[in-house]
């Protein structure tokens, strides 16, 4: 009985068009080959998503997955992943969220949820007690996420009901819309919220009365206590997350000249001291918060105190928000960032992409390419708080300039024309996060080769470059870092661990074995990581992606940074192409970035090779 332990052994399947709900066993074979979360979700997605399908086609798969240690007391594993086709990039999309939803979903009796079809009217899904039903959501449609969560809880009369919901941004098919649970935790990047909106699915509410079993609970508890103490609480690599959380990165980014400032014009922000971790802790921090089962508790719950923003609160802002919605918009008032962050959260927008697209509009406005005629009369200069705080609502509701910006910078630049792609920083349509590659060149490769567009959570060479001891400007050795990071994070995201626990292979193997009873060593886990990264690459190859789309934005090449330690820096196209070639070679892919049949066969993926047997489309997984 391979799936007796760790897994619930069941997948919930919902066809919104046919209003049909079914339950099937989780594939034992795929669970062994791909673990859970990212890997298992990608394997189901490969099988079931028809290639080249529009992300908004009702047939597009929208799936939610947990992993084999989700819902145990393993520290820092209280997350779930949303898997779909990204409306921002057209690639495979895996987007992760913390909080409590994933665990409660698993307690409801399932490893995964696969939604297809489109409901006739606004609907929400109620999952409880190993069952599910599709319910009318006309009273929730148009409502912000906080209202949705509270309404469902009151309707159910149970404060422990957890809800994943979209805001107006998702309903309005904004390609930067996210899916939120517990008010402030988001499957943020890549526009999963818009896919949910395209299905007329407002929310998924869950409550669980089932339990997760492990083979030997006393052994498991002893191992967890040891891991929690030695590898989580006393691990120097986690220390900053425990004391400060992600805002601690503002200072080192600013000092090393990689803090995106005024739409990536500079890597140094004169107002950094007003949005950094010290300022946050001294002025707006109310308390620390944890996701389910997390001993780190990195979240900062903050609240405004000034006359203008008094009482406005948010779980955050995280580093990415402080940078993309702070310095990158020229905003040095942390309370304005709190307001912007809160509005993005409740209206359903990804703050990384929202910060990018607002900064893009600000630069066009300052350059006279956009005028007050296009900006709803707003004086959209960098740093103008009055205009800035209006933007989330305009974007989420697609009002005026908001409609132009609601699909991200790539599509906005295409609409504006006039060579404005020079003012965007994105790969495949997903905006850059907050580590400027002109000051940490490995990040250019990390963004270009991430399987979901520009993302910092697949490879993070900046840790060794700008934040570490390696030369941040040389391309040498950076491909190897990206390959190793991507292999490791593929395993980590398949166990659905949190980024902020610097877990390495030995403990990933130990945790996996302790929860599932499946023997695993470091090599076993590494092989699974390779298999998963090749699989997501294959999915993207099937969608038509290759070297041509693994790009470096023009801005990185043509526009030098201004000021600070990175003054005058660009990324040299030759350096970038060299890293890319090295990278493909290290993965065993061809020069065009296509996994070779030989490599795939070695990983047990031979049947999925581009020139191998075409995949049979089947409804049920084996």
């Amino acid at each position, binding site marked *: 009985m391979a799936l007796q332990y760790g897994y619930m052994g069941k997948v919930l399947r919902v066809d919104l068009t046919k209003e049909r709900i079914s339950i099937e066993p989780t594939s034992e074979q795929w669970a062994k080959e791909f673990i859970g979360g990212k890997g298992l979700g990608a394997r189901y997605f490969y099988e079931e998503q028809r290639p080249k399908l529009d992300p908004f086609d009702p047939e597009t798969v929208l799936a939610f997955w947990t992993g084999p240690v989700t819902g145990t007391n393993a520290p820092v594993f209280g997350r779930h992943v949303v898997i779909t086709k990204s409306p921002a990039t057209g690639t495979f999309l895996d987007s992760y969220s913390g909080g409590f939803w994933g665990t409660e979903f698993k307690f409801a009796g399932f490893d995964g949820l696969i939604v297809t079809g489109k409901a006739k009217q606004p609907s929400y899904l109620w999952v409880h007690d190993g069952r599910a039903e599709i319910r009318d959501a006309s009273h929730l449609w148009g409502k912000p996420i906080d209202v949705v969560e509270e309404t469902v809880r009151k309707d159910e009369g149970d404060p422990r009901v957890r809800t994943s919901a979209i805001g107006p941004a998702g309903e309005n098919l904004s390609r930067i819309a996210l899916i939120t649970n517990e008010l402030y935790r988001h499957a943020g990047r890549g526009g999963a919220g818009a896919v949910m909106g395209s299905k007329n699915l407002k929310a998924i509410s869950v409550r*669980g009365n089932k339990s997760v079993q492990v083979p030997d609970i006393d052994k498991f508890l002893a191992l967890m206590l040891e891991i929690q103490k030695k590898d989580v609480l006393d691990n120097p690599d986690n220390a900053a997350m425990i004391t400060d959380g992600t805002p601690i990165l503002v200072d080192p980014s600013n000092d090393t000249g990689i803090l995106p400032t005024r739409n990536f014009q500079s890597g140094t922000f004169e107002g950094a001291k007003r949005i950094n971790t010290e300022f946050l802790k001294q002025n707006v921090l109310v308390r620390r918060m944890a996701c389910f089962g997390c001993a780190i508790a990195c979240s900062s719950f903050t609240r405004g105190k000034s006359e203008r923003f008094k009482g406005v609160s948010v779980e955050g802002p995280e580093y990415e928000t402080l940078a993309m919605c702070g310095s990158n918009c020229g905003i040095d008032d942390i309370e304005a960032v709190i307001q912007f962050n809160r509005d993005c959260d409740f209206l359903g927008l990804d703050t990384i992409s929202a910060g990018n697209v607002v900064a893009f509009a600000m630069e066009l406005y300052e350059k006279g390419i956009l005028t007050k005629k296009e900006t709803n009369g707003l004086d959209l200069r960098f740093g103008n708080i009055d205009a800035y705080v209006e933007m989330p609502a305009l974007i989420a509701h697609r009002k005026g300039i908001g409609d132009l910006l609601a699909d991200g910078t790539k599509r906005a630049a295409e609409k504006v024309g006039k060579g404005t792609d020079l003012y965007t920083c994105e790969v495949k349509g997903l905006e850059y996060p907050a580590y400027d590659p002109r000051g940490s060149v490995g990040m250019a490769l990390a963004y270009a080769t991430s399987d979901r567009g520009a993302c910092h959570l697949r490879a993070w060479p900046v840790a060794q470059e700008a934040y570490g001891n390696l030369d941040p400007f040389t391309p040498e050795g950076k491909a190897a870092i990206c390959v190793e990071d991507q292999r490791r994070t593929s395993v980590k995201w398949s166990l659905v661990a949190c980024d902020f626990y610097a877990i390495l292979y030995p403990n990933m193997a130990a945790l996996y074995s302790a929860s599932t009873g499946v023997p695993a060593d470091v090599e076993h886990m590494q092989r699974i990581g390779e298999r998963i990264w090749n699989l997501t690459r294959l999915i993207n190859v099937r969608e038509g992606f290759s070297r041509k789309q693994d790009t470096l934005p023009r801005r990185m090449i043509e526009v030098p940074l201004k000021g600070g330690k990175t003054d005058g820096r660009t990324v040299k196209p030759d350096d970038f192409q060299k890293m890319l070639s090295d990278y493909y070679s290290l993965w065993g892919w061809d020069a065009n970035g296509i996994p070779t049949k030989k490599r795939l066969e070695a990983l047990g993926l031979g049947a999925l090779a581009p020139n191998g047997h075409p995949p049979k489309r089947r409804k049920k997984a084996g």
Partner: protein
Amino acid sequence: MPRLRKKTELCVGCDLCSMACSAHHSRSFNASDACILIDEAFPSPGAYKIRYCTQCVTHECVTACSFDAFKLNEELNVWVIDRALCVGCGACVTACPHDGAYMEPNGRYALKCDLCGGHPVCIDVCPKEVLSLTK
């Protein structure tokens, strides 16, 4: 007599206490199948509430039980629910004025802190040292 104490202001709402409790008493994991529960209230007031039985002297739960399911651990002076005798009627949950007794998620039996025989597992697992035992 040892009693469980809390410093609520240190709590981060991670539920590790509930999970350890669930594992100890039910030999599996479900955060609601626990004798210690964490509620959160965000964005306002932006705080957590920790619920568990305070082992009060009036023990309305015991009086309310018609099935003789409560047994006294004399060493600790703690009333313990015998799951074999509990029918899950919920009378103790309703009777408790301190919100210290709960129903198991499937309604099979009631849950109430028994101090794990003197060494509560929730204390060790709490990463923020919220919980402690008084002598």
